[in-house]
């Protein structure tokens, strides 16, 4: 079947100051096709797509839509060309209902009102199999519901070209499959679809062709059926890489951190972590899987001493840390690094330099009333060298670094303090393959140094090959703690949604899951 071109880019270039984000990019997006856009962090994928959606305007080059040369100067122009983009950060107004979000903007249809819009939203939902309640407020929606709403919004406005920027980053396996089914339906309906994702298995699964960018330059386009994950990575990185994640075997140590009957409430006062038991040994990576917002953040905050616990104990090497201040807990050797969705929110002060961020952790060690900047600078230099951080200097504000480098700085600082327990949440969130593997290596190195690691992650494939054990949370409850070698993605996915609960199945066992046989907690002081 001959496919007609929907959008064609010719030698498109965009620079930000002295940084070239896109250089001479040529791209062909066809109707009835799903095109993957692949590239490392900072390779210019989002910038390129933002030029189609009217956020940026190219410095040079031509854009053709449906065969005609066009100039997209604003989101309104993109809108009129039926180009719809679903951004990584959803473009939704939280306090509006679904229907209100959909009719936002200047409609050409004068008769449009909330009632007609609601009816049409229902129609679209029926056609593609979406589940959206037009009268639900966005702030009451889950991440996947919000994304569905974004797609409905784009379809409502009659988009012919659909661009999705990392749509699966926040979805569970099941939700991703549902999304892909919808995308295939839309492809059948003759729409042109561009999908940006870091996950190679998804690229191979969903797309017809793959276009690859590297450092803002166009490398090439291949048919998906001729590609493998290795060949794609090679094009993306520019050299051969190994895609295996090592899981070094380390001799088991006594439990370092033990959590008993822990219950925590979230900011709204609801139970976020419900009666949770688990322990981490030295030289072990315990993965925590769960849909976003299942109490992961609250758990991290509680262990770091930032959140009051409702009930239960946290024992570190036989010592109760539940009532300690964050500083005391850090001094015990427990380090926490949490990468929130916006990737800058916690741990680093974005406007301060790398040096200053180093000093945030060590300022109290000096005796003099003045800050020892030299030492901080040395530490910063060491991290930049060890972890290969790309930065103009140690005095560059952290905010200006790219996502991957920010995360390296954060993790580097935490590891530098020589912790014995590392709590790390989403350390590779939004990172490309290369940077991700570097982070896995760092964690494995720490594991071999007998550090106990709690790894809160989202990519099940990675967790299955990196972690020794995986604990699955669903609405704050533990659904089971399984050996990574004896489980499957499907089982974990079902546990994440609460369809399987291993805890219930195992109540008759003599050994309760989550409690170590050689526990430091003496039964005498355990109520």
């Amino acid at each position, binding site marked *: 079947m001959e496919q007609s071109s929907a959008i064609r880019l010719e030698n498109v270039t965009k620079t930000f100051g002295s940084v070239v984000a896109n250089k001479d990019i040529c791209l062909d997006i066809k109707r009835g096709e799903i095109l993957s856009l692949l590239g490392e962090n900072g390779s210019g994928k989002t910038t390129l797509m933002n030029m189609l959606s009217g956020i940026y305007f190219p410095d040079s080059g031509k854009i053709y839509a449906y065969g005609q040369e066009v100039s997209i100067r604003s989101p309104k122009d993109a809108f009129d060309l039926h180009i719809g983009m679903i951004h990584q950060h959803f*473009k939704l107004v939280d306090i509006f209902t679904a229907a209100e979000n959909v009719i936002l903007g200047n409609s050409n249809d004068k008769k449009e009102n909330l009632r007609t819009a609601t009816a049409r939203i229902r129609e679209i939902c029926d056609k593609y199999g979406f589940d959206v309640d037009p009268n639900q407020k966005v702030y009451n929606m889950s991440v996947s519901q919000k994304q569905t709403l974004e797609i409905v919004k784009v379809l409502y406005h009659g988009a012919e070209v659909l661009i999705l920027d990392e749509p699966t980053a926040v979805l569970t396996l099941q939700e991703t499959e549902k999304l892909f089914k919808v995308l295939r339906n839309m492809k059948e309906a003759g729409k042109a679809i561009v999908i940006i994702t870091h996950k190679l298995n998804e690229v191979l699964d969903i797309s017809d062709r793959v276009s690859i960018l590297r450092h803002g330059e166009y490398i090439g386009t291949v048919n998906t059926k001729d590609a493998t994950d290795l060949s794609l990575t090679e094009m993306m990185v520019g050299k051969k890489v190994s895609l295996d994640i090592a899981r070094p075997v380390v001799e088991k140590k006594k439990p370092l951190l033990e959590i008993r009957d822990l219950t925590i409430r979230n900011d709204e006062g609801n139970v976020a972590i419900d009666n949770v038991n688990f322990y981490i040994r030295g030289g072990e990576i315990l993965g925590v899987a769960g849909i976003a917002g299942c109490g992961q953040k609250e758990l991290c905050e509680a262990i770091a001493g930032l959140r009051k616990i409702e009930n239960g104990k946290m024992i570190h090497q036989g010592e109760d840390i539940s009532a300690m201040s964050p500083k005391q807990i850090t001094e015990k050797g427990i380090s926490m690094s949490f990468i929130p969705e916006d990737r800058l929110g916690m741990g680093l002060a974005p406007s301060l330099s790398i040096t200053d961020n180093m000093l945030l952790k060590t300022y109290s060690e000096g005796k003099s009333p003045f800050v020892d900047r030299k030492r901080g600078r040395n530490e910063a230099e060491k991290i930049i060298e060890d972890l290969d951080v790309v930065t103009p200097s140690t005095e560059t504000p952290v905010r200006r670094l790219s996502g991957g480098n920010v995360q390296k700085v954060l993790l580097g600082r935490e590891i530098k303090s020589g912790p014995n327990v590392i709590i790390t949440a989403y350390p590779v969130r939004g990172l490309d393959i290369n940077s991700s593997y570097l982070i896995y290596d760092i964690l494995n190195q720490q594991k071999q140094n007998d550090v106990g690691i709690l790894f809160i992650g989202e990519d099940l494939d990675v967790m299955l090959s990196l972690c020794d054990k995986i604990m699955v949370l669903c609405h704050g409850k533990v659904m089971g703690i399984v050996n990574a070698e004896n489980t499957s993605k499907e089982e974990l996915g079902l546990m994440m949604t609460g369809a399987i609960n291993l805890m219930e199945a195992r109540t008759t066992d003599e050994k309760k899951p989550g409690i170590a046989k050689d526990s430091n907690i003496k039964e005498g002081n355990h109520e």
Partner: protein
Amino acid sequence: MNIDSWIQWFQSAVAFGTVIMFGCCGEILTEKSGNLNLGIPGTMYMGGIASLAGAFFYENACAKAGITPNPLLCILVAFLCAFAAGAFGGLIYSFLTTTLRANQNVTGLTLTIFGAGLANFFGGSLNKLAGGVGQISISATSDAFRTTLPFATTWGSIGRLLFSYGFLAYFAVAVAVVMAIFLKRSHAGLNLRAVGENPATADAAGINVTKYKYLATCIGCGIAGLGGLYYVVDYTKGTWANDGTIETLGWLAVALVIFTTWKPLNAIWGSYLFGMLYWMYLYTELFGFTLSRSSQPIFKMLPYIATMLVLILTSIRKKRENQPPANLGLPYFREER
């Protein structure tokens, strides 16, 4: 006797409330676009002095020509001057914060200082033209604005309670009602709220964020300028005094915005309540005690305390609909990442 005091108290509360209702409604419209305009007191000053100047020159011209000023023209001149001056203040603010992306808090506070200085400078000059300090009077305009419905005097208590005010008092209520309908029901209102909540989303939906911000701010400031107009022609009955009362009222209008949780309908009863609280110190006899002069200011604080209580209550209840527009006070730049 007692009834009379209650009615008097309510009447002064309405006069007071009308001034801040204009300011409050204007600021709600402005804040819905994401602009936190702390220049409202200055804008009210500008509206006040512009209406005074306009009316003064019109009445002077009439006096020179030897004709009596036309009440309708008096109203029109003063009204337009106040609105235009207020909108001009909004234009300055919009240009600085939206186009040049200056800090909104600093710009707003500066606008307040600018407005107060400008108004007091011209207030002094006008007084001089009129023959000396406190000499200026625009009696014809003031009378026109203060004309009440005929049955205000014949309907007894009800008439005094509800119909004894100039048309601006009712106009303020109408503005609040229309604004509530606009924000809640109209398409443009929905777009405006989206701009204040999440300008990037509004932009991606094809809404002209800059246009909405400019229009909401300028019209909002124009409405706030009407607060100054009411103050000059009705509250002080067409005179000018450099005593800073407008500024006090302006800040109360800003506080009232928080009190209303950004809902214009709440501004109607909220402003009268603020008026009752503000004037309470004169009517404490109704509650069986009298105040010494030195303890009166404590009672003048009541509106602020009410605002703080509302702030505490809304933050405890955490209802999303009662929160300020999410992007309030922040600049928007499309290409910023």
